C-alpha cells in the first residue's frame, strides 16, 4: 500500500498556491484549467439532462400533452447539442486529459499552456451563446443542422447556435493540437511510446480526430450560417445545390466525433482495469494500436448515417463493409480487457464497478451498431428508437460511465481526498440500473417501429415508454449523488495520500494534490506501463524484477 506519509497541511500544491479569483481565471496550470472545465461541463451536463428529463416526461403518455410539438423539437435539439458539444466531447479529454496527460508523461505542463486556457475561454464563450439560444427561444434543427431545413425553413436561432458550436469546435481543436504536440515533444526521459499508459494512447488517437475532423464541421456550419445570412447558397437546391453534400461534410466530422467521445473513455477503462486486476493490460500493443485503428477507420464510415438518404447502392455497400471493420479494433479492446481480468486479483471499488459497467454497456452498444451497419436492417430501424438506444448505450452507457469511472479513480489525485466508497458504489449501481431501465426498452420499441423525434406515439408503446421514463428519473438520482458526495469529500473526505490505489503510472508517484509543476524533479522512466508485478512484489510468491 501507499508508503508515503499523510501530507502536512502547509505543503504547497496547485490548489493552495493562490486563492484569488484571478489566480483561477488567468491560470495557465493545466490542473486548474482541468477543474475550470470540470465546473463548466458539469453545469452543461445538468442543462442537457434537464432537457432529457423534459423529453422523457412528455413521452410518459402517448398524447402530446406536456409541451407543444415545436417545443419538443427544440428540447431534443438542445439536448443533443448541449450534451454532445458541451459535455461529451470535452468530458474526458478536457477534464481528465488536461489534468493527467502532462503528469502521465512526466511533463510540467501541456506544450501550450496559454492556448489551453484560451480553449477553455472559447468553450465558455460558446456556452454563453448556447445559453443565450436556450433562454431566448431555442433552436429546432435537430443537432445535425440538416439542410435545407436549417437554411430555408426555420426561424429559430440557427445561426447563433451554429456560431456557438463553431466556437466550441475550435476549443476542441486546440485541445487536440495541444495534446498531440505535448505527447510528441514533452515526454520525460525514458518515457518511450511503448511505455505510455493506454490513457495517453487513446487521448492521442482522439486528438488526431479532433484536429482532422472538427475543421470540416466548422466549415459546414459556417456555410449554413452564410446561406442563412448572406444567401451564399452552397447547399441551396434551387441553385442546383446538393443537400446530401452537407450530410457528407457533416458526418465526415460527426461520425468520427463519436470516437472523440468514446476513445478517451476506453483509455480510462484500460488504466482502471489494470489497476483493479493488479495486472499489466493484456496485449498492451494491440490495445494501443486499436485506438489508432479506430481513429483511422472512423474517418471511413460516415455514410452509414445516410443509407436511406439516397446515396448510391455501391457506396452504401462499401460504407457498410467499412463500418463492420470498426468492430475489429473495438472487439480487440473488449477481449483484451476481459483477458486482463482473467486470473487477476480483482477488487470491486467504485471505479472498477464503472469500468465493468462500461464493458457490458459498450459491448451492447457496439453489437447493436453492427445491426445498423447492415444495410437491410438499417433501413428497417433508421430514425426509430432503436438508433436512439444504440447511441445512448455508447454515449451514456459507454462514455459517461467511463467519465465517472475516471473521475472516481483520479479524484484522490485531483482533490487529495477520498470520496465515500459506500456511496460511490451505491451511485454506480443506481446509474447502471437506471441506465438499462431507461434505454433497453428503447431497443424494443424502436425495433417494433416507434419513430424518434415525435412528441406523440401510438398507445401500444406506452408501457415501454413509462419504463424508460422511470429509468430516467433513477438515472438522474444516480448522477446527482456523485455531485453531492464529491463536493462533500472536498471538506470531509479522508485524506487520500499519494497513491491510495497503489496504482502504476507517473501521476501516482507525485504528491496528492500535485505541486504546480507536477514533480519536484523531472522523473526518469525505466519501466513499462502497468508494472503491477513490481508494485505487488511483496505480496506475491513469484518475485520479478522491474522491467527495463
Amino acid at each position, binding site marked *: 500500500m501507499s508508503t508515503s506519509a499523510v501530507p502536512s497541511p502547509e505543503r504547497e500544491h496547485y490548489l493552495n498556491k493562490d486563492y484569488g479569483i484571478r489566480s483561477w481565471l488567468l491560470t495557465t496550470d493545466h490542473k486548474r484549467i482541468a477543474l475550470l472545465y470540470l465546473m463548466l461541463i458539469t453545469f452543461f451536463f445538468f442543462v442537457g439532462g434537464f432537457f432529457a428529463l423534459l423529453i422523457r416526461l412528455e413521452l410518459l403518455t402517448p398524447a402530446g400533452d406536456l409541451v407543444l410539438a415545436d417545443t419538443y423539437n427544440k428540447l431534443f435539439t438542445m439536448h443533443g447539442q448541449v450534451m454532445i458539444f458541451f459535455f461529451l466531447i470535452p468530458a474526458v479529454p478536457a477534464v481528465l486529459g488536461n489534468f493527467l496527460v502532462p503528469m502521465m508523461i512526466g*511533463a*510540467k*505542463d*501541456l*506544450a*501550450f*499552456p496559454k*492556448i489551453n486556457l484560451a480553449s477553455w475561454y472559447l468553450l465558455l464563450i460558446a456556452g454563453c451563446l448556447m445559453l443565450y439560444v436556450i433562454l431566448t427561444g431555442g433552436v429546432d434543427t435537430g443537432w445535425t443542422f440538416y439542410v435545407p431545413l436549417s437554411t430555408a425553413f426555420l426561424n429559430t436561432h440557427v445561426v447563433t447556435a451554429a456560431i456557438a458550436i463553431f466556437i466550441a469546435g475550435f476549443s476542441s*481543436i486546440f485541445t487536440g*493540437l*495541444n495534446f*498531440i*504536440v*505535448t505527447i*510528441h*515533444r*514533452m515526454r520525460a526521459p525514458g518515457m518511450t511510446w511503448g511505455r505510455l499508459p493506454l490513457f495517453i494512447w487513446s487521448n492521442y488517437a482522439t486528438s488526431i480526430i479532433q*484536429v*482532422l*475532423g*472538427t*475543421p*470540416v464541421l*466548422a*466549415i*459546414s456550419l*459556417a*456555410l449554413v450560417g*452564410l446561406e442563412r445570412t*448572406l*444567401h*451564399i*447558397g*452552397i447547399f*441551396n437546391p*434551387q*441553385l*442546383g*445545390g*446538393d443537400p446530401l*453534400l452537407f450530410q457528407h*461534410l457533416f458526418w465526415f466530422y460527426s461520425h468520427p466525433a463519436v470516437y472523440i467521445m468514446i476513445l478517451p473513455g476506453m483509455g480510462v477503462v484500460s488504466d482502471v482495469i489494470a489497476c483493479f486486476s493488479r495486472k499489466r493490460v493484456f496485449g498492451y500493443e494491440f490495445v494501443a494500436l486499436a485506438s489508432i485503428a479506430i481513429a483511422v477507420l472512423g474517418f471511413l464510415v460516415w455514410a452509414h448515417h445516410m443509407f436511406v438518404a439516397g446515396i448510391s447502392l455501391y457506396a452504401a455497400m462499401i460504407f457498410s463493409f467499412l463500418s463492420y471493420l470498426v468492430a475489429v479494433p473495438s472487439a480487440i479492446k473488449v477481449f483484451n480487457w476481459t483477458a486482463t481480468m482473467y486470473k487477476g486479483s480483482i477488487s470491486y471499488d467504485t471505479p472498477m464497478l464503472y469500468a465493468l459497467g462500461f464493458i457490458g454497456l459498450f459491448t451492447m452498444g457496439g453489437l447493436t451498431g453492427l445491426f445498423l451497419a447492415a444495410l437491410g436492417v438499417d433501413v428497417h430501424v433508421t430514425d426509430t428508437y432503436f438508433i436512439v438506444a444504440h447511441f445512448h448505450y455508447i454515449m451514456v452507457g459507454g462514455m459517461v460511465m467511463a467519465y465517472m469511472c475516471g473521475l472516481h479513480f483520479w479524484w484522490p489525485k485531483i482533490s487529495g481526498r477520498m470520496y465515500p466508497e459506500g456511496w460511490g458504489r451505491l451511485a454506480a449501481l443506481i446509474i447502471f440500473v437506471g441506465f438499462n431501465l431507461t434505454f433497453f426498452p428503447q431497443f424494443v420499441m424502436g425495433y417494433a417501429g416507434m419513430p424518434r423525434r415525435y412528441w406523440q406515439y401510438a398507445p401500444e408503446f406506452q408501457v415501454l415508454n413509462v419504463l424508460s421514463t422511470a429509468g430516467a428519473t433513477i438515472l438522474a438520482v444516480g448522477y446527482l449523488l456523485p455531485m453531492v458526495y464529491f463536493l462533500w469529500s472536498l471538506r470531509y473526505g479522508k485524506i487520500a495520500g499519494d497513491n491510495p490505489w497503489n496504482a502504476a503510472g507517473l501521476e501516482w508517484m507525485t504528491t496528492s494534490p500535485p505541486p504546480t*509543476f507536477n514533480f519536484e524533479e*523531472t522523473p526518469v522512466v525505466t519501466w513499462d506501463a502497468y508494472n503491477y508485478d513490481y508494485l505487488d512484489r511483496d505480496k506475491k510468491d513469484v518475485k520479478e524484477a522491474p522491467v527495463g
Partner: protein
Amino acid sequence: MAEREVELVVEGHPPGLQHHFSDLEQQREASTMGMWVFLITEVMFFGGMFLAYLVYRSMYYQAWVVGSEAMDFWFGTANTAILICSSLTMALAVRASQLGHRRALVILLIVTMVFGIAFMTVKGVEYHGHWLKHEFPGPSFHFEGPYEQQVEMFFSLYWAMTGFHTLHVLIGIIIIGFVAYYGWRGEYTPAHHNTVENVGLYWHFVDTVWIYLYPLLYLISHSHPYK
C-alpha cells in the same frame, strides 16, 4: 535552416524559454510542430469548400466555364503575383531572423504586410465590381447569360472561398504587424525566433491556398477545349 545556430545559454534561464520546457530546442520543436498541426486543421477547413467546388464543378461544368469568364483575369493574375512576391519577402524575413539581422527583418516584414494590403485592395476593387454587377448571391443576384442559377452557385463558392481566404490574409497582416513590432524591439535572436518561422509558415499556407484558388476560379475558361 541548414546551419542552425545553437547559442543556448548554458547556465541559468535562457531568455525566451518558457518554464515548462526543459530547453530551447524542445520549445522550438514543440512550437513548430504545433504550427504544422494547426495548418493541417486549416487544410481540412478549406478542404470542405474545395470538395464542394469539385462536386459542383463536375456536375455543372458548363456553368463553371461561364462563371469563370465573368471573373476579372487581370485582377486575379495581379494578386497571384503579389502574393508570390510576399512569400519571397516572408522567406527572406525568416532568414534575416535566423541570422539576427534585426533591421532587415523589420523591413522585410513590413514589405510583406504592404504586399498583403495590396492584395486586399485589389480584392476589394474586384469585390466592388462584382457587387455593382449584382454578382453577389441572393435575391438581387443577376447574371446575363446561360445557366443563371448554377452560375449563382459558382459565385456562392467564389465569395465563400475567396472570402475566407481574404479573412486569412487579413489575420496574417495583423499578426505580421505584431511580429514586426516585437522584431523592432529586438525580441528575436538567432537562438529564439520560432515565432517568426511560424508566422512564415502561416503566411506561406495562405499563399498556397490562393495558388489553388486562382486557376480553379479564374482560369477555367482559358483552358476550355472548345474555345
